[in-house]
C-alpha cells in the first residue's frame, strides 16, 4: 500500500522516512539485512533519487523481500530471475533507476545464467547481492558460496562443492563494475552503493551479510570492528594497496604476476601495487579477487573494477532510432504490403 505523495514525489528533498514503506519488516532480529536496508534508505535522499522513478526488483530469498520495505515501485518476482526481468524493464525504461536485490543462492545458483548475461550485456541496473553464504529463507542449506566441507542440514557430512568467488565470477562475466562491501560498515556500504548507482551500465556489488540464524559469524573474522583494519584491504583508485592498524601491510605484484601480501617495511611504499579500477584488462582485478580464498583471510573491499562500455538499452534504443531515421516511422499499411501484392477487381 502506498499513501499518496506527501512531498517525496515532488521535487522537494526526501528524507529516509519517505523511502520506507508502511510494511512491517520481517527479517529475523539481528539479521544483517536490516543494516543494508537502512543504508539504502538513508542514501537515496542523498542521491537525489525520486521515488516514482525508482524500482526495486528481486527474486526469492530473505534478501529478496527487500522491495516490500521500500516506498518505491517494486517487484518481488521468482527465484533467480530478477536480472532477466530487470533487463526488460531497464531497456524499455531508461528513465528509471533499477535496483536488483538478490541473495547468493538466488544470484549464483538458480539465477546464475541471468546474472552473467545481464553483466556481459551491461544493462543499466544496480545489482546488490547479499552474500550470507547460506540459504536463509529455506532454513539453512549450504549455498554456492558456502565454504567447502560446510556442514548444514542438507550436507550433514560436509559440502563437496568448491564455492564460487562472486567477484571473480562477475569479472569473468565481463562486468563493467564490480565491488564488495559488508553489512557492518554503513559508510562503506553507502559509498560503494553510490558508486554502483552512478555507474552507467550493470553494476555488481557483493555485500557480505550476516545471517545470524543459520550462518552466524561467517564474516566476523574480517568485519568485526576490531578485526577490520587488519583483515580488510581497502581498494582506493590510484592509491597503493595498504592495510593494517598502522597501514603496515601492503600488496605487491611479483614478476610472475602473483599478488602477495607483504610488510611495507620490507619492500618500501614504492614497491606496492597501485590500485587501478579503470584498467581495461580485468586481469589485475581478477588477481585481487583471488587474494583471499574466503572471509577468513585479508580480503579486499571496495571497487575492483569500474570501466566504461556502451550500455545495452541505449544501444537498443539507438538501433530503433536509426531505423526510424533511415526508413521513417513504421507505416502499418506499407508493412502488410511489404511482399508482392495484387489486386482483384
Amino acid at each position, binding site marked *: *500500500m*502506498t*499513501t*499518496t*505523495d506527501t512531498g517525496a*514525489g*515532488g521535487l522537494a528533498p526526501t528524507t529516509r522516512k519517505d523511502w520506507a*514503506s508502511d*510494511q512491517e519488516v520481517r527479517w529475523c532480529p539481528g539479521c544483517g539485512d536490516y543494516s543494508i536496508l537502512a543504508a539504502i534508505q538513508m542514501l537515496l535522499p542523498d542521491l537525489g533519487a*525520486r*521515488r*516514482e*522513478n525508482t*524500482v*526495486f*526488483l528481486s527474486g526469492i530469498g530473505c534478501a529478496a523481500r527487500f*522491495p*516490500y520495505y521500500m*516506498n*518505491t*515501485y*517494486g*517487484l*518481488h*518476482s*521468482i527465484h533467480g*530471475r530478477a536480472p*532477466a*526481468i*530487470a*533487463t*526488460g*524493464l*531497464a*531497456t*524499455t*525504461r531508461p*528513465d*528509471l533507476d533499477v535496483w536488483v536485490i538478490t541473495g547468493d543462492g538466488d544470484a549464483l545458483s538458480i539465477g546464475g*545464467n*541471468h546474472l552473467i*548475461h545481464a553483466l556481459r550485456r551491461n544493462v543499466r541496473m544496480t545489482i546488490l547481492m547479499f552474500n550470507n553464504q547460506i540459504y536463509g529463507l529455506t532454513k539453512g542449506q549450504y549455498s554456492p558460496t558456502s565454504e567447502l566441507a560446510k556442514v548444514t542440514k542438507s550436507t550433514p557430512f560436509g559440502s563437496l562443492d568448491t564455492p564460487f568467488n562472486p567477484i571473480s565470477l562477475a569479472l569473468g562475466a565481463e562486468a563493467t563494475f564490480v565491488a564488495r562491501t559488508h553489512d557492518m560498515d554503513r559508510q562503506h556500504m553507502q559509498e560503494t552503493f553510490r558508486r554502483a548507482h552512478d555507474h552507467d551500465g550493470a553494476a555488481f556489488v557483493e555485500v557480505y551479510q550476516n545471517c545470524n540464524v543459520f550462518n552466524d559469524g561467517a564474516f566476523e573474522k574480517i568485519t568485526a570492528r576490531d578485526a577490520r583494519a587488519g583483515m580488510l584491504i581497502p581498494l582506493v583508485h590510484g592509491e597503493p594497496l595498504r592495510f593494517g592498524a598502522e597501514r603496515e601491510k601492503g600488496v605487491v605484484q611479483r614478476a610472475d604476476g602473483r599478488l602477495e601480501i607483504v610488510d611495507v617495511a620490507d619492500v618500501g611504499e614504492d614497491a606496492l601495487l597501485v590500485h587501478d579500477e579503470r584498467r581495461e584488462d580485468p586481469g589485475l582485478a581478477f588477481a585481487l579477487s583471488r587474494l583471499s580464498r574466503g572471509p577468513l583471510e585479508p580480503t579486499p573491499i571496495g571497487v575492483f573494477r569500474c570501466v566504461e562500455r556502451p550500455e545495452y538499452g541505449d544501444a537498443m534504443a539507438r538501433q*530503433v532510432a536509426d*531505423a*526510424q531515421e*533511415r*526508413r*521513417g*516511422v*513504421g507505416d*502499418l499499411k506499407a*508493412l*502488410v*504490403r511489404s*511482399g*508482392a*501484392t*495484387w*489486386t*482483384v477487381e
Partner: protein
Amino acid sequence: MLHHRYTMTTTEHRDEHHRQLDRVVIRFAGDSGDGMQLTGDRFTASSALFGNDLSTFPDFPAEIRAPAGTLAGVSAFQVQISDHDILTPGDAPNVLVAMNPAALKANVGVLEKGATIVVNVDAFDERSLTKAGYAANPLTDGSLSAFALYEVPMTSMTQEVCKEAGVKPRDAERSKNFFALGLLSWLYNRPVDATVEWIQKRFADREMVREANTRAFRAGYHFGETAELFESTYEVQPAHFEPGEYTQVTGNQALAWGLIAASRLSGLPLFLGSYPITPASDILHELSRRKEFGVRTFQAEDEIAGIGSAIGAAFGGSLGVTTTSGPGVDLKSEALGLAVNLELPLVLVDIQRGGPSTGLPTKAEQADLLHAMYGRHGEAPLPIVAAKSPSHCFEAAIEAVRLAVKYRTPVILLSDGYLANGAEPWRLPDVDAFERIDPAFASGPNHVLDDGTEVFWPYVRDDATLARPWAPPGVPGLEHRIGGLEKADGSGNVSYDPANHEKMVRLRAAKVAGIVRDIPPVDVDDETGDAELLVLGWGSTYGAILAGVRRVRARGKRVAHAHLVHMHPFPANLGEVLARYRTVLVPEMNLGQLSRLVRAEYLVDARSMSKVQGVPFRAGEIEAAICSLLEDAR
C-alpha cells in the same frame, strides 16, 4: 507404362496443347541442400501473382543437412493452386518433382493414382539408389507403371547452360532446382518475368549465382517448350476472389505483423523477449527487422529470460510478448504463473510442434492445448486464443493483445508449425478499421482509507472486468509493490490469510471466466440447419475440416462445422451448440485434448478423431470419418 525419355534429337514442332485444370497439387522434393523450399516458395509466389488461390505445406527435416541422398534428408514443399477457393495444400499430390531417388522413395506413397512424376534422372546412379534403399532402379523396374514418369537430366542440362557463363560444374549443379522451377513454370504456364526479376534481386550481390540460377531457370522453361516430352501444358485459371488487395503470407509473418498492429492500436511499444526455437524463430526474425515500428527485440539467454524480460517490460508499460514452442513453454511455466499473479498484460505465443521433449521440431501438432490450460502449479487460469489459418494469425495476435491489455493477464496464443510456415493469399485488412486497444493506465488514487487519505491500491478491481489497475513506474503517488506472494484483496499487501487466498483464487478465475462476455459466440456452419453431426475443430485443422465437410455435402449429406478460436474461456453459446447435435466429432492432431475439455465442461459424448503424425489431416480423412459416423447413425 507411360515412360518418356527425353532425346536431344527432337526437331518436329507440334501444336501447343493447353489443358485446363481447376486445381493441381504439386510436391517438390529433394535433398535438404537442394533448395526445394526456395523452389516451392517461388512457384507459390508466381501463382499468387497469377491470381490462383493456394495453400502450401513446407515439410522439412529437423536436421539442417542430414546425410545427402538419404531418406532422412528429404525436404519437400507441397502447394495446391486452384481456380476456386481452397482450404488445404491438398491430400494427394498430382505432380511430384523428385530431385533424387530418396525424394522419390519418400514421397511416391502419397501420390494420387496416375500422378505425374518428374525426376532428375541424373541423380539416379547406383550409389544414390543404394543410399535411398532401392535394390533396383525404380525408373526401369516397372514399379512406377501406375504413374506418368518423366525423366529429365536436370543436373547435366543445368551444367551445360552454365558452362558458357564460366560457372564450374560443381557450382552449376546447385542451380538445378531453378531448372526444375523453370520446367514447372512452363508446364503450368506460370508468369516468367516476375521470377527472373526476383532472382536478380535476391542474388543481387552474388553475380555467379545469379547468372547460374537465371540460366538454369530459363533453360528449364525452354526445355519444356522445345522438348517433346509433355503432351500438353496445363493452365489453372485465376480463382475468383473477393475484390480487394491481396498478398501472400505465412502464419509467422502474419503473427508478427499482428503484434506490430496491436502495438499501434494500443499505443504500447512492443517488446519481444525470445530464445530461438523452431518453428517460432521466424517471428523473432521478422520483428527484429521492423525496428522502425519502435519494436525492441531481445534474444535472451534462455526461455525463462525471454518471458522474464517481457514481464519486466510489461511492468514498465510496454507490450510484453514472448514467443516459443513446446520445450520453451515448459521453461516459461513458472514465470507465466508469476504473470498470472502479478496480473500484468503479457502474450505468450506457442508455435506448437511434435512432442514430448524435442519430439518432431519441424512438424506440426496440437498437443499443447491442455498444457496451455493447466500447465502451471496452483490455480492459474489464463485466456487462450488459437489461430486457425496462416492469415488468421494476424487477427488472432491482435485479439490476444486485446484480452491481455484489457484484463491485465497473460494470454497464450496457440499456432503450430503448419500454420507458421504455410502460406496463403490474404486480403489485406483495413488497418485503420481495427478497434483501438486502451491501455487505461492508472493515473491517480483509487481508494480512500478510513482516515480519509486517498491512496493507490494496486489490486482494486474494475467492477465490470475485474481487471486491476496497470500503473507503470514514473507516476508520483502510484508507487506500489507487487510480487508472486499472495496479496490482500485491494491493497495488494502480502497476505497469508486463508480466506483471502481463496477469495483471490476465485477472483482471478472469475476475471478470466468473465471474458466470455467479451468474445463472439462460436459460428456454426450448418447450411441446411438440420444436420445431425457437428464437426468441432480448433487451430490449424480448419482448412482440412472445412474441405472435408464440403466434400461430404457434395455427396448430398448434411453436416455442420464449428471452429473455435477462443479456447479459454469457451464462447458462451458452445454448450448449447453442442447439445443441438446428435453426434459431435472433434478431429485434432493430438490424442483428444479439446474433446476431453468439452466432455468435461458440457457432459457431451464428443467423439475424438486423432492424428499425431506431424502432418496435417487430409480432407479425405475427415470426409471418411464423417461419412462413417453418418453411416453408423443409420
